[in-house]
């Protein structure tokens, strides 16, 4: 890992030791092998998805630095990417991240009321996490599912044609599931 890291103004380094399991590392190396010699950096976006999921739910500076070292690039090259794309979380998020679409086609099909309802129900505003650490609410732009509006995504699973009843049901199910503390289904690492 590079020793000459410029101190970060956005978020601090915790200095925690992070690393992938041997199994995940093997998968990561397979992803890297898809790009030509000398183009390891191409694997950055997919590897960040995996890192976020497997190393704590968000991309802490430690995780970003670790990914930089894996791909042989400067930490700044990871920071500028991690801060550009909306699917990367830079701060701690809840176990379930609710991303509700706020763009036109959803908005004209009742999306705004759905967002308000979620906010009231969970008693949090856009960008906040519930006190129990279960849910984070984020409004996002078009999810490419406008014909099924209003739409939200919870940890990358889509919930479509939303109504208040459907939201109640989904939240209740997730609360139950969280108690059982099952591992997450559909992991990124298995998709590639």
């Amino acid at each position, binding site marked *: 890992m590079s020793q000459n890291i410029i101190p970060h103004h956005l978020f601090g380094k915790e200095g925690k030791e992070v690393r992938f399991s041997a199994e995940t590392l093997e998968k990561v190396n397979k992803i890297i092998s*898809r790009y*030509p010699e000398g*183009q390891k*950096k*191409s*694997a*950055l*976006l*997919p590897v*960040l*998805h995996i890192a976020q999921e497997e190393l704590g739910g968000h991309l802490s500076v430690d995780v970003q630095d670790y990914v930089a070292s894996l*791909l042989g*690039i400067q930490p700044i*090259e990871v920071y*500028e*990417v991690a801060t*550009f*794309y*909306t*699917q*990367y979380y830079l701060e701690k998020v809840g176990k379930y991240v609710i991303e509700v679409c*706020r*763009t*036109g*086609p959803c*908005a*004209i*099909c009742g999306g*705004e*009321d759905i967002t308000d309802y979620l906010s009231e129900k969970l008693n949090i505003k856009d960008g906040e996490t519930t006190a129990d650490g279960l849910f984070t609410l984020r409004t*996002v*732009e*078009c*999810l*490419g*599912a*406008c*014909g*099924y*509006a209003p739409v939200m*995504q919870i940890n*990358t*699973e*889509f919930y479509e044609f939303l109504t208040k009843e459907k939201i109640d049901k989904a939240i209740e199910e997730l609360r139950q599931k969280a108690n059982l503390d099952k591992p997450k289904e*559909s992991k*990124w690492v*298995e*998709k*590639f």
Partner: protein
Amino acid sequence: MGRKILTDKIVIPGINTFEVYKNNGGYAAATKALKQMTPSEVTEEVKKSGLRGRGGAGFPTGMKWSFLDRTTPGPRYLVCNADESEPGTFKDRYLIEKIPHLLVEGLIISSFALGAETTYVYVRGEFKTQIGILSKAIREAYENGFLGKNILGTSYNLDIYVHSGAGAYICGEETALLESLEGKRGNPRLKPPFPAVKGLYGRPTVVNNVETLAAVVPIINIGGDEYAKIGIGKSTGTKLISACGNINNPGVYEIELGLPVETFLNSPEYCGGVKGGKSLKAIVPGGSSVPILPANLILKTAAGENRLITYESLSDGGFVSGSMLGSGGFIVYDENQCIVRNTWNFTRFYHHESCGQCSPCREGTGWMEKVLHRLEHGEGRHKDIDLLVSVAKRIEGNTICPLGDAAAWPVAAAIRHFRHEFEYHVENPEIVKNHKHAPVPLKEMEKV
């Protein structure tokens, strides 16, 4: 009934698997192309078909392929654009989900035609399920000898890899997509050089949309000439239209280009009319980036002719009274929708998605968003309306990539066709302050 050549087999159970797809005529086109045709013969068929890019710009695909620099030694790339993030567009997701092997087969034929031995499919990161489906289809194609080394006993080798984005609309722009694929921020590149000369890793590259590449399969099956017979004039073939908004049957429909907009909107076979028996107020026919048209101008052109779903008919009248086919994202607004609110919403989208490289786009979209927010919330002034028009004009044509235009056009069009609604907002601050829908019915507003 319109002819279907992309989605005709979607109803067959199990068509997402290699076996069922192959047993129903799948991979016949790939076999034909690789075993009986040369790369230039394949390109020739695509040229003859008149196929135009389905990602939004409508550029002739055969011509794009023939611009690819084939003389410089070293690798060339095909990159499939499955970023699908234009609001109103959800057709590529549908194709990948329902019939992934059609895309895989299209990729094989197209890569062969371009002489590409490595092909990447850039899928937006939110489509994790679809990434899984496509990855599985690709694995099956490898297992059955349609990918890998010496495909079907020929000397042709091809690897296809799925690459995920991570949430950025701008990565749909082809040079931003290439930057992103190289592991960088999605900052569009200055052109020229075009990707056909210097693309991925500085190598000659073709970027095509999912639907474009899928359409290559029927073109090889039936022949370019036969494909060109479907549609009207320079709008050949079929197009997937993703219909959403205030209609009875939202969804993805394959139509023959040339279908009247009115038929598409009202026929029970397609949108099934405006929901709840309400009146039609406006339609955005090609994704959020194209001009919005009021009911009278979307159903008929200014000259009173039926508006058809073709590249030419939808743009008839230019920006004065026309729009564009764009990506085929068909967004329908009923009489209760507020045009000012929708314009503010879309502008917020473009401001959020601007990569920030050029000041007209970065600052202009933010400025427009602020002014529109003011108007929408009853704090606007009359001169704000002209201010918006002037900012939009200054963005248009002055930026590195077309996102600037895409942000400017909808604002200009909304004011052009619905100026009275913007004026109503200025004059009735108390009424518009807390509304989400149109403050008064369409007819009344026009009287104001």
